[in-house]
Each structure stands twice: as structure tokens, then as C-alpha cells.
């Protein structure tokens, strides 16, 4: 019957990719390296430890959000409400601190809010079976609105001056390494272990690869979906806390920015495919590194913000095209959806 699976037709995708020694994340890393070398040669002050740390620091939050997003994307989902979750939950934590809560309690409460949001997202997607894109698009509006109306006092929430300890995760350093970078590293390590060493992680891959097969194999797909979104939201909240700590405030306006697009971009750029089951933490880091290098180099060159965006777009487009040239989609076997 399914003759095609046996003939080498289909190996164009799976097997072919393996034989082509170069993967998408490697392409991105190579492009990043080339750019970095170029900058190092042309820009004084680029190739310094300090600058490289500043570079990593500047994209640390994007990286954390990317890793959060990658968890659901690998499970063939998408969380468009991530930024809203991040903003609301961390602003809530800040507000509690303003009201005199200690930072651990406040952060935990914020995390609780985030996890609750994630669980609700997951519940709607898994049990009501509304596609992830719609669900999170809608919950994005909802979270923002409800958060602003019921949880928060204003668009901008400030870190109270007394929360010095808490501010460390945004402003502090350890052995010269900025705290956000450390947080990124910890999150990356945690998610890497989760995805590749833990059974749950394998389930996430299975879920993204083939939902029906996962279900038939006996994986509890629905609770798993809820878990994925909860993890995503929790990490998102962490990113929000880092962001809040580093600028001592969190502005809900960020929900209306294009940050969510940037997050999706770093995730997909590195090779975490939107069809699910592919890529990993390293892919996200590769994508983040590319964006970080670009932005840092251009900031050093003092390019206008808009020119920066145009250049960023051009480089991304080039990366997408190169990837497509190296991994052409076979019309006869391609899965639709990304």
C-alpha cells in the first residue's frame, strides 16, 4: 500500500537531511561566525570580552523567551500569548513587591500566575481543541486585558528600590558575567536536559512529530500539552522577571510590540520547525546568537535603528533562502504547515 515509504522517495526529507552534513542550526552558526569575524576585523571594540558579554546580555531575554517558545513549538504548538504572559506575570510580581511582599514570595506568585495561564492555554488547546494559534492569539488579548484590569495598577510597574536582592538577576554580575546571561545559561541547560535527557522531553518530541502516533503509543497527550504550555509560560515569566530587574520596571506596552515576532524568528531561524518535533535548545541559541551579533555590530556602528532592522531583515531573508536551497522541500513529500 504505502509503497512510497519504502522507496527512497521519502528519504529525500529524512534521510537526505542526515546525509547532507549541514543542518539548519549549523548554517546559522556559520553565518553568525562569519558576521562576527567580519565585525571583529572592521569594528574596533567588537572582539573584546566586555563587548561579547554585553552582546550576550542584550539578547539574553530574547534567548530565554526563545527557549520558552521552543518547548511548545517542538510539541507542534505556538504561544503567541508568551509576551503578554511574561509582562503580566512579572508585573504582578513587581506589584506585590511594591506592596511589601518579599521578592521570593512575589516572584513565586508571579510564576504561579504564569503557570496558571499556561495551563489554561494548554487546556483550551488540548481539550477544547481550538488550534494553538487562535487560542494563544485570543488569550494574548485576554491576559493583557484581565491583567491590566484586575491585577495591575498601571501600564508601567516599577521595581521598588528596596528590592535590591531581586534586582541582581537583572543587574548583577558573577565573575564578570552579567546575571541575565547566567539565567539564560541555566534555563538553556535545564531545558536541554528536560528535552533530551528526560522522558517528558522525549514525549514532547513525539507529540510534535506525530500527535496521533503519540496518543496511540500511550502518551497522555492532553496533559502533556498543558505541561508544555505551563513550562513555556513559566520560563516566559522568568524572562519577564529578568527584564523587570534589569530596567527596574516592566512596561505592559511591550505586549503591543513586535517582540513576539522576534521570539518566533530566533526559534524558527535556528531550525526549530513549526511543524514540530525538530530542533532543540541549541537551535534557539544559534538563532539568538545571530540576531545578537547583528544587533551588537550595528549598534557599535551606530546605525539608525531602522537601517538596523532593514539589514536584520536582509540577513534573515538570506538565511531563509540559503536554508531552502540546501534543504529543498520535496513537493511530493512535504508536510504542509510552516
Amino acid at each position, binding site marked *: 500500500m504505502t509503497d512510497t515509504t519504502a522507496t527512497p522517495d521519502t528519504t529525500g526529507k529524512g534521510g537526505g537531511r542526515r546525509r547532507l552534513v549541514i543542518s539548519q542550526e549549523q548554517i546559522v552558526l556559520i553565518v553568525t561566525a562569519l558576521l562576527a569575524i567580519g565585525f571583529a576585523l572592521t569594528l574596533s571594540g567588537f572582539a573584546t570580552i*566586555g563587548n561579547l558579554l554585553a552582546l550576550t546580555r*542584550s539578547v539574553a531575554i530574547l534567548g530565554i523567551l526563545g527557549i520558552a517558545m521552543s518547548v511548545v513549538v517542538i510539541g507542534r504548538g505556538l504561544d503567541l500569548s508568551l509576551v503578554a504572559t511574561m509582562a503580566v506575570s512579572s508585573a504582578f510580581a513587581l506589584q506585590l513587591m511594591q506592596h511589601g511582599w518579599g521578592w521570593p514570595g512575589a516572584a513565586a506568585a508571579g510564576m504561579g500566575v504564569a503557570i496558571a495561564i499556561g495551563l489554561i492555554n494548554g487546556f483550551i488547546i488540548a481539550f477544547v481543541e481550538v488550534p494553538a494559534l487562535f487560542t494563544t492569539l485570543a488569550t494574548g488579548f485576554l491576559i493583557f486585558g484581565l491583567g491590566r484590569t484586575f491585577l495591575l495598577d*498601571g501600564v508601567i510597574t*516599577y521595581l521598588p528600590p528596596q528590592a535590591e536582592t531581586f534586582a541582581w538577576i537583572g543587574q548583577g554580575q558573577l565573575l564578570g558575567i552579567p546575571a541575565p546571561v547566567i539565567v539564560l545559561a541555566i534555563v538553556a541547560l535545564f531545558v536541554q536536559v528536560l528535552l533530551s535527557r528526560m522522558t517528558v522531553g522525549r514525549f514532547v518530541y513525539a507529540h510534535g512529530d506525530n500527535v496521533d502516533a503519540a496518543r496511540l503509543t500511550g502518551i497522555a497527550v492532553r496533559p502533556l500539552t498543558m505541561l508544555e504550555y505551563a513550562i513555556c509560560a513559566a520560563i516566559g515569566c522568568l524572562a519577564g522577571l529578568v527584564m523587570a530587574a534589569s530596567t527596574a520596571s516592566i512596561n505592559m506596552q511591550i505586549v503591543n510590540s513586535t517582540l513576539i515576532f522576534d521570539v518566533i524568528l530566533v526559534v524558527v531561524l535556528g531550525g526549530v520547525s513549526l511543524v514540530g518535533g525538530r530542533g532543540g535548545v541549541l537551535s534557539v541559541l544559534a538563532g539568538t546568537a545571530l540576531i545578537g551579533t547583528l544587533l551588537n555590530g550595528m549598534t557599535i556602528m*551606530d546605525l539608525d535603528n531602522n537601517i538596523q532592522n532593514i539589514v536584520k531583515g536582509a540577513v534573515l531573508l538570506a538565511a531563509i533562502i540559503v536554508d531552502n536551497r540546501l534543504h529543498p522541500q520535496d513537493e511530493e513529500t512535504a508536510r504542509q504547515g510552516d
Partner: protein
Amino acid sequence: MTLRMTAVVAMASAVLLAGCEAGTRSGQEAPVGTASTAQIKAPSLTGGDSSANLQKRVDQALQGKTIAWVPIALGIPLADIWTQVMRSEAEARGMKLEVRDPNWNTTAALQAVSSLIAEKPDILVVHNPNVQLYAQELARAEAAGIPVIQVNMVSNQKTTAYVGADWPKVGRLLGEEIVRSCGKGSGSSGKVAIVQGEATSAVSLEQMQAAAEVLGKDPSIKIVSNQAANWDASKAHDITATVLQQHPDLCATVGFWGVMQTGAAQAVKSAGLQGKVKVYASGSDGKLDCDNIDSGLITKFLNYNSSSQARSVIAIASFMLQTGLPPSAVRMADYSPLQWMEKGNYDPALCYDTSKPRSPAK
């Protein structure tokens, strides 16, 4: 209480005086003052022969009138202070404040203005998202007989009144302050980083141009970075952090909104350069700004007093309602007075905490 009343009356008269100046100042606008004042036939102004009559007449003019107010969004300190003060001031006079919150959505904002015109409030107060968006609607409003007061950014369509900062002046003052501390003879590197708001925003643009002009006059000043952070603190943080890596000897960073500049200030602090790199900002009198000045994050802050702006708005509204002038009879502006604020050297009464509204007794 009496003090406040006196202040208001004084303000109103100041506003009226300032209004006469407006025509000549704005430059692009034909001087209207002379032409229209001649046409003022203000029956309602008469009858103030006795205090009681005056009281009655004012009550008649103001009681139950509606002021419609469309900010860009609620929830930011600036807009919240405006709204709180405007509401309390309006209600104290028996007027009603109707707020439409478009929540940064310019499309919704435009719709709000359009539908408000249809609802015919007595006064329309808008905070322009940019110089062009409301232009046609504002003209329509005036044609419909609704006086329009613009706050903090003046549209290409000039209307009855503008209340807000004189942005080129803000930029100039900031620039001069920087020249003083970083310029020739200061012994510093002379390196300055500018953090703009939105590159296309007139508010940011006018400040930037004026500041850059002043800075450009001093050859020892070098602008090492001039980037837009889109009113976003974390973006300002990242830009500043990178700049500091390149130029640890930076003399000053200047940002055009206190809230945004907080991010730059944090970056300076994270780099351990607090006190070495001077942080300048302009902005309104939110509590955060005062806290930042107190904590030393911001070196010097050029303040336009948003609560007094709101009071001006109501005063002008009251003036228009009492005189019954047609909207186009007046083209006035009330440029907000500016104050420098720095640590230990400012009037804490200027700081407005929205969680502790200051409302007059009714």
C-alpha cells in the same frame, strides 16, 4: 484650599495672556489673535457686576458640561496624572470628564475622536499620537463648534489651544546643560549618547534637533550614539550597555523621556559607572522620576509639570465655556514651565503619585 483657588485663577489669567502670544510664536500659523479678538462679542462676559451674579453666571456656563478626553493610552503615569487632575478639577467645577481609552491603538483612537464629535461634547481634549493623524477630525470638530485643546503634542491642525511643553526649548536646555558638564573645559571625554524616543515622533525629533544643534556648537562634544529606543526602557538599556562597552569614558547620556531613560540609567548602574556617566532626561513629574533622582540613577531631570498642564486644560476649557467663543476665535498655547530637578535640590511637591490622587474638596 484658598491657595489652590488663587493658583487656578492666576493660572487662567496666565493662560489667557500666554494665548495672546501664541500666534506669533508658532510661526507657521497666521496671527489670529488680533483678528478674532476684534470680533469677540461676548455677552456672557457681562453680568459679572456682583459676586453673586458672577457665581451664578459661571455656574450656568459650567454646570453639567462635558469635557471629552482622548489620551493615547491610560495606565502610563503621564496620562494617569492628566486624567486624575483633569477629572478632579472638572468635577470640582461641576463639569463631567468623559475618557476614551484607545490603548495605544491609533485606529481606535481615531474612531474615538470621530464618534466623540458625533456626540458633541462641550470641549474636546486630545493627546495626539502624531502630528497628522487627528488633523482632519480636529478641523471637523471645530467646524461642529467644539473647542479642541491639544496636549503635549500639537497637531498640524492648530486648534483652540495647545497645552504642553515647548519641545525645542526642552532640547535646547538639555543640550546646554550637557555642554556645561561635558563640554570644553569640563575635563571630560566629551562623549555623549542620545537616546531618542520614536524616530518619527515630533516630540522626540524636536528635542533631538534642538539638542544636537546646541551640542554641535561645542567642538569638544562628540555624539557617539544617537539611537531610537521607541519609548522602551529595555531597549534603551541594551543600547546604552553596548555604547558603554565601546565608550566606558562616556560623559553623559540623554534621553527624551524619563520612563525610557530609566533603562539607560540602569545600564549605567550595571556597568558600575553610576556617578561617572551623567544621565539626563526630560519628562513629567511621575513618582518614578522623583525616585530615580533620589536614588541617583538620574543625574538631572528637566521637568514639565503634568499636573499643572492638566489644570491649564481645565482652565482653558472653563474660559471657552464662560466666554462662549466660537472655537476658531482663539488660537492659543500654554507652554508648560520647565524646572530642573536633581537629587536633594528639588521640590518634592512636584512629584505626583497617582496612587495618592490630590483631589480638591467638593
